[in-house]
């Protein structure tokens, strides 16, 4: 996947799964403070990422994710 494809897919997933307006899904947006997600959402985000992007995410690595850019980078690494 190109970075553009990853950004589009992750943003669509975040919009559909967590009802976050598309305009708020910017690389610098922080998941917990700005996008109002919490630890319960993070677990569900992991499941969405794995199922919709066909990747396997290490839960410990997910804990280090802070921003949308971190999510894009994580997916890019795992998707190869």
């Amino acid at each position, binding site marked *: 996947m190109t970075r553009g494809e990853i950004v589009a897919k992750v943003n669509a997933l975040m919009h559909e799964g*967590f*009802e976050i307006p598309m305009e708020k899904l910017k690389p610098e947006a922080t998941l917990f403070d700005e996008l*109002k997600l*919490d*630890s*319960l*959402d*993070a*677990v*569900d985000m992991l*499941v969405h990422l*794995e*199922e919709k992007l066909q990747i396997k995410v290490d839960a410990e690595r997910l804990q280090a994710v802070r921003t949308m850019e971190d999510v894009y980078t994580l997916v890019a690494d795992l998707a190869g």
Partner: protein
Amino acid sequence: MKVHITGMGAMSSLGLGVGEFFEGLKAGRTGITARPEWKQYVGLHSHLGASVPAYDITQIPRSARRTMSRMSELAVVATLEAVRGADLLPGHGIGGGKSTPRIAICLGSTSGSPDTLETYFRKLIERGGPEGQMGTTFFKVMNHSVAANVAAALGFVGPVIAPSSACSTSAQAIIHGWELLQTGLYDIVIAGGADELHYTSAAVFDVVLAASRGFNDRPDEASRPFDSRRDGLVVSEGAGVVVLETEASARARGVRSHAELAGGAVICDANHMSQPNGEAMDTVMRLSLERARLQAEDIGYFNAHATATVQGDREEAQAVRRIFGDRVPVSSLKGHLGHSLAACGALEAIACVKMLEESVLIPTRNLQEIDPECAGIQHLQALEKRSFRHAISTNFAFGGMNTSLVVSGIN
């Protein structure tokens, strides 16, 4: 201590809210429709059900909705209607106001969400373990899911109690709410129950030959309490919630009472898991009258549990005859609503209040030819305009559960 019903909320197969619910009852409508998609389930013979029409849940923030199954959503919407009607929103501890531990929640369901349970276990078995399970799933299937989700969504900080006794759940919740208020420890109890339609609910009754099988092509005629041609119940879904409040609290807040919850009783026959027990029915009816400080002669309407099973309707009709003779008009609302399981007791209590308020008696739908074994009581077969003062409502459930409550009109 006098207990008043100061708010009511209903989500039923007849519509959204108490207004649509009662208009549907008066119009003699039913929410039961054919479920041809259930034919795929091997061994299931009842292909009928009644579901709540489409509703809007977006008024609840996503952070609260994410842990709700359909039954919790129904309960939240019904509770919102009930608390708004009781003038509890905003500023009295709900919806952003400052809450108080003197308001208790007592809401139950038959089980956690069957739809979510199916999804959870299907995935668990397919994957051989918990891989891929959502973090929010458990909160939809835990036994107190309905009560906990209502509390979280609406901001209650008092006790959250989640009774569960299948088909008598919400009646039990209301009666225990009445008992809680008798202690003087609480001002208000928000009580009721909810369940969601799922084929496994039909299967539970189908397996023990208690679900309707012979009317799959005629859903309108399927649920027929006390009728000679009845062949079992039809499952449905919904939520019924009432705001129970002490007279002192209602007066202090200046809120209108719809009716008095005069008393109620819950007993177990401790005899059989599925068979109805006439002796226990007699006992619970008498006990509820005693707690309401009324005699059988005072009752002007009897709302029967009667789900259209062969045995249950017969036992209940005979119990009514033993206690009330043929003097009291009797009807069941299962012909309209189907059997909404954990919601039915509260929905039927709300219907009793509306009948008291509007001086009207709702007949048993589809009761065309009274089964001789259900005879000897005053069956309502047509809508009647009639003023009355006290109504009694019974509910029974697997596990030997027997409940009876009495509501009284104001003035």
